[in-house]
């Protein structure tokens, strides 16, 4: 004999609820995704085809904002500064992160503490990191100037010199984000199978041979993922520059994120800024796809 609940269940199934149920359960999540991801993206795309004055849209301009970008000297300069910044900092972070991960793979007394200490910079708020570096770099009362003066030298010019300020920003980024590379690569190294390494040792391979023929090739996918992730993240670097240099001196450290922010919020060119960010989004996506394709090709060969 069927109970009341069972009877109700069968009636509902008969009405097609069993087919609709998965969609009903997906609906809340779907609504959230539509509301916080799809709609803003669509709205941003729509804004990028409009001209704004005094904060309000005044005309549809099609792709004019996108075309205008490529003749905007400030945009091109900030794009170039960003590419240089990303290439330099991510490369250094990858090399340092890999070296640290290899070093910390060994088990010795105090290694757990060392691993913990190494990831501290990554967990500090970027704004705080920028303030710390400002206290180090400032030419009037900074730590470097104090050290230099204590040794009989003069003031150290970091933030007032275009090249030094750029290098100073890269150093900050390397200090803050090498730990992320280290963490990802250490996890990758720890998950590698032991057998090939033991076999290589039995065959008398030295450390460099093991690294070149085993560790590096086996780590390549992890390294690629880490580099792609970090590259995407580095393209969006904002807080540190905003606090440390505001893009100066001149335009030496004006990354695309700072230029886009100023364009959107300070200069109220909302449509143009939207076009700028869409373009950058596409550039980053293209870079990511290229990196992945390159990786697949290398793996296949």
């Amino acid at each position, binding site marked *: 004999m069927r109970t009341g609940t069972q009877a109700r269940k069968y009636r509902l199934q008969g009405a097609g609820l069993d087919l609709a149920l998965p969609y009903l359960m997906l609906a809340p999540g779907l609504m959230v995704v539509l509301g916080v991801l799809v709609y803003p993206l669509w709205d941003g795309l729509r804004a990028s085809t409009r001209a704004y004055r005094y*904060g309000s849209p005044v005309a549809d301009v099609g792709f004019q904002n996108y075309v205008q970008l490529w003749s905007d000297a400030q945009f091109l300069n900030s794009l170039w500064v960003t590419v240089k910044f990303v290439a330099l900092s991510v490369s250094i972070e990858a090399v340092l992160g890999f070296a640290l991960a290899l070093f910390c793979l060994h088990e010795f007394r105090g290694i757990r503490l060392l691993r913990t200490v190494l990831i501290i910079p990554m967990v500090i708020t970027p704004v705080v990191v920028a303030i710390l570096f400002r206290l180090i770099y400032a*030419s009037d009362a900074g730590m470097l100037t104090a050290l230099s003066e204590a040794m009989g030298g003069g003031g150290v010019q970091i933030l007032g010199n275009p090249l030094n300020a750029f290098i100073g920003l890269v150093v900050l980024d390397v200090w803050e984000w090498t730990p992320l590379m280290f963490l990802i690569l250490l996890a990758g190294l720890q998950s590698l199978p032991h057998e090939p390494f033991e076999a290589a040792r039995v065959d008398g391979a030295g450390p460099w041979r093991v690294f070149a023929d085993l560790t590096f090739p086996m780590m390549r996918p992890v390294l690629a993922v880490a580099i792609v992730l970090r590259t995407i993240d580095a393209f969006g670097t904002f807080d540190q520059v905003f606090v440390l240099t505001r893009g*100066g001196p001149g335009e030496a450290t004006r990354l695309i994120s700072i230029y886009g922010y100023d364009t959107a919020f300070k200069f109220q060119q909302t449509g143009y800024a939207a076009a700028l960010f869409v373009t950058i989004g596409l550039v980053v996506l293209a870079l990511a796809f290229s990196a992945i394709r390159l990786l697949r090709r290398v793996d296949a060969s």
Partner: protein
Amino acid sequence: MMHSSRLTRRSVIKAGLGMALATTALTTLGLPMPAKAAGKKVIIGAFADGGLTPFKEKIIPLAKEQGFDIQFLEDEYGVTLEKWFADAQSGAGQYDLYLLDDPWVPQFGAANVLEDLGAGGIDGSDKDWIGPMIDMGYWPPQKGPRVKGFENAKPTLICVPFVGDLQTLTYRNDVFTGGAPKTWDEVIAKGKEGVAAGKIKYPVVFRGVSGNPIVTSWYPVFLSFGGSFFDDKWNPIFNSAEGKASADFFVGTMKQNAPSGVVEFDSDQEGAAILGGEAGAIIQYSGNALKADDPAQTKVAGKLDFGVVPKQEKAIAQMGIFIAGVPKSAPNKANSIEFLKWYVSAETQAKLSEAGSIPVKRSAFGVAKPGNRLIPIALQQLDAGALPRPRTPDWAKVEELLGIELNKALQAGSGGGAALDTAAKQVKDYLTTVGYY
């Protein structure tokens, strides 16, 4: 008989549930919360600046006595414009009153997001206002060129001057023993003597950071050399012979007599240099000047005096006042306007002057005991000449373009005139793209 009330878990839960239900019910019905009805609430948004210290310390308590419940929300200067503009435009209603930097008024005015304070009963024609200050509260401006789209619009009072700030000279009286230096050449020459005598380290210090800071520091030099920024058709003319001479002097002579790191200096380093006893003279707004007599904040208390800015042709300063606007989305609009009426009255302005701030009404300069000796100097500067920045909603972009080029020339220590030519072309191109001509 005495009742003993014991606090039990059940009683706490019951009370909590009761309060939650009552709050929900009141909110749903749109009724005011009884606990918050202590006074006439006014939420003021301001950027952090020493120029507002007397207002915070002395005037807010007075406002409370008048029945106003003031909430004073401060932010860093660099983020306030965008934050408030977004608030006003979206109608979020987070603030009742913005204390704007005056160059922002055109942007808010053009976007039509501020209340008409004249319609609210504030009299912009009161002769007691400092003329150039109240002029800044109108959009479109009553005088001077207007941007396209607003040529025939009726000027509306959308903001009222709040604290009357302007640039003046702060100098070391043991270096400039004959009183305030009258010309820039005197600033440099006497400053060098001060350096040679070991009294100071640098004749002059200024702000060199790209954008607003460097333009603000260069502006009084530019004005004193006789420069003008735009003609009446919005064509940039700051790269005139006078303008170029001022820029060359600024990035050349002034840099040579300033700290080597001046390219990265902003107001905090500039203030530290004069208050720390390293600088002979600086041009500054009132924020740091108010600290000049406080031994807790300066190493050279008693050695700092104020004067009108030096001149080459004219002694004209840049005016940069705190100016108050009420967003159309303000949740307590009536309270805000009532507060402003009280605040700009001659009586309250006199109190502001006694508290140490530069007032916005001329009568308040005549109080028996102004709270700061900068106040009479500020009046002297107003009478000698003080000009606001051009009244355009695109000033932020113009300032950015000019500031970058000036900063590059400052790094090089030469080429100020060429920097102005480059910036003028960029400004002209930009204004063309946004439809000025």
